[in-house]
């Protein structure tokens, strides 16, 4: 029973990291209908920029501020040079453009800042603690709390600020939003910047644990099953999806893995997502548009 609980809790906590990555996706998807494959490379870029600035001797807060400024600038550049010229194109074209974008961002990040692994110390002790008689990673606990806090802040922002309301209007009915004078380009810039900042947080947490390196950008691939299970349009769904994937893959690895050779976490979430799609084609929280002919 303890093993089960430990596996489950460990998986749930790790799942919050997937949730963080997925939230960045959902924001962009909601505002612009773009399936942003570059989210992973933006995460890498953000974390790499931050750690490089730290290594150059900048204080923590200054490094954070400069990184965020760069991410905002990057969002504006991406909106101007990629999204605007591709407005009105098919979702598939936009997806492929972000695939290209991910190459540019990765190439630039590693070309400028190097490809070596950077250690990042956030001052969180990674000593396991006992909760009752269940062993839990303290680091995971901090990371999970951060993820949940971030999601709450985002939810509050989107429900209570002008920008948030505009964003929801755009997501709901783009043309109606345009007709009441909402500046779509500005919305896109903001959303990409926010997604970048979410990526930075995820990148810092993830990077603190396994080092900041190229493989960080691959977490984008894990976000796909998370999004499919949670739905592309719901932040709550992204969180739930992350938790489900985290818990399920951990449980599967522990209980099924040994029978088939182990190491099944790279592919297990995708099969899980396919199974989910059969049961709920639009994910747990997503709504499916009616097909009109």
């Amino acid at each position, binding site marked *: 029973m303890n093993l089960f609980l430990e596996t489950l809790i460990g998986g749930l906590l790790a799942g919050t990291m997937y949730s963080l990555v997925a939230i960045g996706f959902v924001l962009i998807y*909601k505002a*612009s*209908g773009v*399936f942003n494959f570059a989210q992973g490379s933006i995460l890498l870029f953000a974390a790499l920029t931050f750690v490089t600035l730290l290594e150059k001797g900048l204080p923590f807060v200054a490094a954070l501020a400069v990184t965020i400024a760069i991410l905002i600038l990057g969002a504006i550049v991406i909106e101007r*040079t*990629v999204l605007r*010229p*591709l407005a*009105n*194109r*098919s*979702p*598939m*074209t936009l997806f*492929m*453009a972000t695939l*290209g*974008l*991910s*190459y*540019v*961002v*990765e*190439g*630039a990040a*590693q*070309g400028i800042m*190097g*490809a070596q692994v950077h250690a990042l110390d956030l001052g969180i002790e990674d000593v396991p603690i006992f909760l009752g008689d269940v062993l839990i990673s303290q680091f995971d606990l901090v990371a999970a709390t951060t993820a949940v806090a971030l999601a709450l802040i985002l939810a509050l922002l989107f429900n209570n600020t002008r920008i948030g309301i505009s964003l929801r209007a755009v*997501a*709901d*009915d*783009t*043309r109606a939003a*345009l007709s009441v004078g909402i500046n*779509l380009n500005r919305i896109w810039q903001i959303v990409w910047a926010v997604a970048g900042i979410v990526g930075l947080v995820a990148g810092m947490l993830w990077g603190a644990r396994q080092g900041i390196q190229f493989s960080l950008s691959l977490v984008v*691939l894990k976000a*796909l*099953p998370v999004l*499919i299970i949670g*739905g*592309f349009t719901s932040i709550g769904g992204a969180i739930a999806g992350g938790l489900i994937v985290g818990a399920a893959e951990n449980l599967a690895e522990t209980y099924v893995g040994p029978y088939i050779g182990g*190491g*099944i976490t*790279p*592919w297990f979430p*995708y*099969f899980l997502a*396919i199974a989910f*799609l*059969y049961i709920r*084609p*639009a*994910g747990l929280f*997503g709504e*499916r*548009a009616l*097909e*009109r*002919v």
Partner: protein
Amino acid sequence: MSQTLSNPPLVSRGVAPVTRLAPVALPGPRLGLGLPALLLLAFGVVPQLGGEYWLGAILVPFLILSLAGLGLNLLTGYAGQTSLGSGGFMAVGAFATFGFVVHGGLPLPLAIFLAGLVTAGAGLVFGLPSDRIKGFYLMVSSLAAQFFFEWLFQKFPWFYNYGSSGTITLPRLELFGFDIGSAQGRYYVTLSTVVLLTWIAVSLTRSQIGRNWMAVRDMDTAAAVIGIPVYRSKVVAFAVSSFYLGIAGALWAFLYLGSASVQSFGISRSFQVLFIIIIGGMGSIAGNFIGAAFISLLPLAIDHIAQGFFAGHVDAGLLQNIQKAIFGLLIIGFLIKEPDGLARLLRTLGERLSNWPLRF
């Protein structure tokens, strides 16, 4: 197309962009004398002129990548189904070929052909969800294939015959008793295979099956209404596409690399094949060759330029990242300026040139 995603808040929803351009004529089905000339060049002239390096290290991989592009293009460019699993299916082809030769004792050509069929079967299985899953969602199925096969061929030593490093190698490349290990031999075998499979692909795209694929791609609801078996068309596209990818994988492992492992067919291979068809042109046969040529030659060109400018002072890692960024920029540039790829660009250019004195 078939993206029925939940609530895509696109600006253009519901308003089809009205084309106010001149009607576009599709190219005629014949290349005239161009094709025989091209074949003569490829079979007769190139092997005489090209040295060991050009044949074995440039042209063989170029041809195999063209073939892989062709496989993905049938699925994505013609049938409109997205896939990020090309690398995984290439791995199936390579490891199945190895299995048929080593465990089954079959001759190489038969082993490769059967490996193609095995890969087709694998593709069919991972295409099965396409009745319920559409658009981006379907990507999850191809990624499942990619990571599952990477895991499978690494985890179970039977697939690489219990070698220590997990690599697969064939002792001697033989075709009907002839040694084809030389660069020229490998070039000829690759070229012949690619030509044959290209001819079949052209036949398919011009048949009812090909038209059904394109109909499903352009509008699947309408396709069902006019009596096209949509699901079967998709599954067949997955199978045929995987057949091509499987053979490309086998050639890549044994005729180009010589010895391969799962790492030769990772997710970055899938991206590479996808980039070939984006740059070359989705829904174009010639585009695969153009895209593959581009993707094979660009790194050489960048290398050359960097050597020329900086006299070898550029770090190899940096160069790789520059290459990567340039690829990304090109992808974005193509999608913005020429969504139909280099194939269309070259055709437009050709048409303008032929009208040159009148208008350019």
